[in-house]
């Protein structure tokens, strides 16, 4: 799935995880895996570049970036809005 692959690529480059992103399942807690608040900013900006989207203020909560599944849902929600 291209969306998942892109998300994993972004996480691999910007999340500063202490584990290999390929070992994480959809529900794994990314903050527990080493992502900090600051690295989540980089993840957000890189996702915006990768998917040509812009996260709105109401989406800037910890829950949006807490797992690969949560990020996928947020990306798909924004893509559906157009």
């Amino acid at each position, binding site marked *: 799935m291209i969306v998942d692959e892109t998300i994993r690529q972004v996480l691999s480059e910007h999340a500063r995880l202490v584990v290999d992103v390929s070992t994480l399942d959809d529900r794994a807690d990314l903050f527990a895996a080493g992502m900090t608040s600051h690295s989540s900013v*980089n993840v957000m900006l*890189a996702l915006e570049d990768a998917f040509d989207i812009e996260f709105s*203020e109401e989406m800037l909560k910890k829950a949006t970036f807490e797992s690969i599944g949560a990020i996928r849902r947020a990306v798909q929600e924004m893509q559906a809005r157009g």
Partner: protein
Amino acid sequence: MSSARYEVDSAATLASRLLDGVEERRSQAGFGPTQLRVGMDVIAVREVARSLERFGGRYVERLFTVHEMATCRCAADTVGNVRGYSTERLAARFAAKEAAIKVLRPIGARPAWPSIEVHRTAGGWCELRLSRSAATLARQAGIDQLAVSLTHEAEVAGAVVVGVCNQGRMDADAGQTGAGRVE
């Protein structure tokens, strides 16, 4: 007892009596107790430098206010300069925002980073100014005073934020502690 020890004891006793008096008067007026909240955060300066190199202006504009951007501008030959910004100063301000969020204790959505501003006064000291979502959180928590202290060196930046949380009238504001206490 030495005179120095006596002075320390006297000051502590006086402070304690003053605080007791304040709390007693607040209690008599129907207000809840005063509480302090403390938040702190540290960040590696190189993380900010990397973000600035990778995302440029978008990174700065999503996190910082116009005032913060202006106060973090530096000359091209300044150590730690990336794209015209002092990465040490930006890192300290990011740490202050994170420390403030720990004081505000949001449930669910976090306040937008620019809604927490580190304002540099004419005297060179810094203070926090809240707007929009951050100001709303402060009002809801009854936080009516905030203080911030920043520090940075070449590798690491950090900040401590203290908030004074005055709970609102216990009779009329049950369930909305402190609402309306912040102007």
